[in-house]
């Protein structure tokens, strides 16, 4: 998969944000004693977001964007492609994170237990292997972060995390 797909997705998000901004700025009422008004800045900024996103999209379509792609984020070769499977792993990791948050704050699973499951499961996903040694290390780290973190955050910093004890 080419980075241009990701870039196009980012631009789509920006256009949506800008469009929503233009619509919402139109709903803002006037204010008699303020020469600038509340709507001027949101309007201007939203319009620029949409216009610049369209300009970037044009550059992407015409191939100009590829030439000046940021080497820090894509490697020295300038354009770095990656297999779709890698992207699916990122999506899976995002899913794990969301499930972790739901487990903690909607279901009320204790932080220690949720972390004990989250860390090894995520490590398995990222490492793509399930070697006994790797899983043991991940489980040990999950236990330390889970139980140690629960103690630290709930008893020392008084963070309102669901706790086992």
């Amino acid at each position, binding site marked *: 998969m080419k980075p241009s797909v990701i870039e196009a997705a980012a631009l789509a998000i920006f256009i949506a944000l800008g469009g929503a901004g233009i619509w919402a700025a139109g709903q803002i009422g006037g204010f008699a004693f303020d020469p600038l008004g509340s*709507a001027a800045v949101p309007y201007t900024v939203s319009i620029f977001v949409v216009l610049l996103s369209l300009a*970037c999209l044009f550059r992407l379509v015409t191939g100009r964007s590829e030439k*000046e792609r*940021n080497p820090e984020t894509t490697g020295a070769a300038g354009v770095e492609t990656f297999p779709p499977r890698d992207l699916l792993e990122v999506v899976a*990791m995002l899913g794990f994170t969301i499930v972790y948050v739901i487990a903690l704050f909607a279901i009320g699973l204790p932080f220690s237990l949720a972390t004990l499951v989250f860390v090894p499961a995520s490590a398995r996903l990222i490492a793509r292997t399930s070697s006994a040694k*790797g899983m043991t290390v991940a489980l040990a780290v999950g236990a330390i972060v889970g139980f140690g*973190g629960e103690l630290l955050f709930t008893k020392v910093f008084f963070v309102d995390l669901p706790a086992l004890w």
Partner: protein
Amino acid sequence: MEGLLSAFGFVLTPLPLLLMLVGVSAGVFVGAIPGLTGTMLIALCLPLTFFMAPETAIVLLISIYVGAISGGLITATLLKMPGTEAAIMTTLDGFPMARSGRPGRALGLGIGASFVGGVVSWLALVVLARPLSIWATQFTAFNYFALIIMALVLIAVISQGSMFKGILAAFVGALLSLPGIDASSGTPRLTFGLVELNGGIDPIPMFIGLFAVGTVFSDMLDRGAAAKGIEASRKGILMSLGDYARHGINLLRSSVIGTWVGLLPGVGAVIGSMVAYSVAKSVSKKPEAFGTGSEEGIVASESANNATIGGAMIPLIALGLPGSLNNVLLLAALLIHSIQPGPLLFVNNPDLVYTLMAALLMANVVMYVVMVLSVRWVSRITQVPRAVLFPVILVCCIVGGFAYNNSVADLWVLIGFGVLGFFMERGGFPKGPMAISFILIPLAEQKLRTGLQLSAGDWSPLYSEPLTVVMLLIAVAMLFLPFFGRLMPRLGFRRTPGHTPDPSEE
């Protein structure tokens, strides 16, 4: 002077010293690991600072900042992988020197030069910040507005990658800063009827999502093989007095360059070290040695990149203008405690300013000690498997994002910005202009509004106040300079044939 001395008294008490040790060590650790950055760690620590006094919080964050900029040197030298962008130029000479059997010498030069760079820029901070802030108190609201616009344009234009993307990122940051109740009229704007948005988007979950979660997701796609490292050695790790004398001019020159570059908004440590490296090469008696393990190259790069820290602090303290990502996060930490950096900071919170100054110097001292003592361990710790590291970072993000307000809604904001951060990083959009604009645009709008109210709606000061005009013209020039640069050859203004530019100068 008295205030600075009492700040040193505070910084040298057990708790700040302990925080400094923890902060510098953690900073060196993340700075040494390619892919992890000090920005990520500072973002993660922001919620933690909520439980601290502002002075203590600033000690911790400054220490992380100094440690992270310095830590990149280790992997740049031993693995040929700069842990931070700031150490890119160090790789050119550090790795060849380490490979030729002198890893301790390469690291020692880098650590010593980093320390000198930090001290020189600290001196500049102490000398320049107060006069600059006194001068800035005379700024009109329009002057301030123009200054912020100029800084934002500079940051967006010179950020990595395409200028278009930098400017777009800055505008997106501006747009994201606008939801909430308008302080002037009390009108809700861009809230879409959501009560949760009345207070605006909180910078803490936003920054943790953008810089930590987004970076983890993005780094998952980098599946490069681990580099084979050179074993670190302590031999030659301490620079002798003779070394300091021999490299004295280079150290001083590069530190001054780094400080000056750090002063400019958005330019940062990478450009600072590149400029210092290029200047050192151009004035060197042995320019051909650069890139093959030159001591001068390491000294120039490392002193300059550390010097940018103190340089960047000057506009942050004196004008309230964060020039780099790390400075935005420092600014956010101060805002959490309702402290607004700017010209009046010396008047309203002098203790905090002097604590920041004292912490910067002491963090450099602690950095020197930590780096010298821990260099062998750090080079091994960097080989921690990412499969374990990334989930732990995500757990820290979730806890940090929640702890700030004990709010689950913040976690959804955090995850949302994590996704946005991923798209921005992989799509080549710089996140710096977005974060800086997010913080500065509300201030710019407030200044413009104040100016207009004071002038009864008259816009003419924007083109009649000399300082405002100069700053806005600089902003416009910065914006259009790249286009003129491309237009010149087409109009017949070509480079002299046969001139081959030095890649390091570019």
